[in-house]
């Protein structure tokens, strides 16, 4: 399944870059992120509990970064496994300067979904993928706006399940944030992993 899109962040390229490094922000954009750990240079492991309607599933994911060109682009490979199936993805992310205060993020992800999610949920794969990608990015953009202008009255409400995640992220942040790619990647990982499909039989 191909997921492609663009999203305009209301911030300069450097600000977006930093945003993607900020663990607090990124965790909030990823519904259900519970644990993140750097195992090696450019390699990370994460635990996520994703919920779509009444369906939920836990995923253990391994993430690997490569082809980094700061602050323009990088590649990320994700391997998520859970009881209801697996998600493997490869994403190319690029950041382009649109204006001084706007950055165009382009993503092209190739996602493969398997196990029960695919064999019972194929009807929804396409739509959920697009839907979650959009939601994640909107959430991150809201976070960016809030971060750039903390005096802004706009109330930024992170998606649910955040408190725990934020706590965990803080612990993990010190290690992981050394690698600027990681959080950018995590954002897209969230997109990728979040394209997990939930299905209901009528």
């Amino acid at each position, binding site marked *: 399944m191909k997921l492609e899109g663009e999203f305009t962040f209301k911030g300069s390229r450097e600000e977006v870059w930093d945003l993607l490094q900020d663990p607090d922000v990124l965790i909030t954009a990823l519904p259900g992120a519970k644990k993140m750990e750097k195992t090696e240079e450019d390699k990370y492991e994460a635990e996520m509990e994703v919920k779509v*309607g*009444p369906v939920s599933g836990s995923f253990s994911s391994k993430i690997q970064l490569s082809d980094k060109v700061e602050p323009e682009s990088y590649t990320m490979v994700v391997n998520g496994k859970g*009881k209801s199936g697996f998600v493997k993805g490869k994403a190319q992310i690029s950041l382009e300067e649109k204006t001084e205060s706007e950055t165009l993020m382009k993503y092209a992800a190739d996602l493969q979904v398997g196990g029960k999610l695919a064999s019972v949920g*194929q009807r*929804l794969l*396409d739509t959920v993928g697009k839907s*979650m990608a959009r939601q994640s990015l909107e959430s991150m953009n809201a976070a960016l706006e809030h971060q750039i202008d903390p005096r802004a009255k706009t109330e930024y409400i992170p998606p649910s399940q955040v408190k725990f995640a934020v706590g965990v992220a803080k612990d993990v942040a010190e290690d992981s944030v050394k690698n600027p790619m990681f959080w950018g990647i995590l954002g897209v990982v969230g997109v990728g992993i979040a394209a997990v499909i939930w299905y209901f039989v009528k």
Partner: protein
Amino acid sequence: MKPCTFEYYKPSSMEEALDLMHQYGGEAKILAGGQSLVPAMNFRLATPGILIDINGLQDLSYIKEHRKHGVLIGAMARYSELEKSDVVAKKCPLLHETIPYIAHPQIRNRGTMGGSLVHADPAAELPAVMLALDASLRLRNKDGERVVAITDFFTGMFGTAMKEDEILTEVAIPHMPKRYGFAFDEVSRRHGDYAMVGVAVSLNVDRKGRCEKGKIVFFSVGDAPVFAEKASQLLDKQNVSEELLENIANVASSEDIEPGSDIHASADYRRHLAKVLTKKTLKRAFDKALA
């Protein structure tokens, strides 16, 4: 395909049910008709630790007419009851026309109006029909009650504006205006299957046959029912004509919807079907309104 273990409660009163929801909220799932929930549990895709069975709440299952608010339907009204109801046949003909398209009789004997709306499957018929009818929903929790307009209710893939401890209790469908027209249609592989594309149309005309208010709503073309805004606007103050129908169908299928692809239908084929169905349903709706 056996579910994981779960705790089971069957409240005998609304108060009890709301208490349980307050206590367990996010961990619990309401069991109404079970036609979507139970298979998901058997597949182990849904693993609620707690099931709250509301089939004992008799006072949630009614279909009645209210002078001001329109037709009031209790959340536990089963599809089969809606199908047989005289009130629905007379006062909500669009809903009446839709029910036979939903799954199969066995499923309709158990499935409920409330369940369908709360479950919010993008391929479900009732959410789209309620959106076309401008319905409003009554939500209750231990602290009180609120009414949510249908346009604010669906938030995304299987997502609704409900809070974790709320139960949907009632759906109110406003009275039909004068010179009312409606139509429902869907295309599915076999009778009773998920629709590849579906449309619900609700409109009324003035004395000169010009459309006063029209709503075209699609389902199975996105992550929730889709109100075809651009296309519906084109109905405004128009008389029916072949060109109008052709134009609206084009706009609806190419600009208002972003269908996905799956093994049964490509996005392209879905757009084609959307165009075909829009023309058919608009024509039928106008015919009824003008009669």
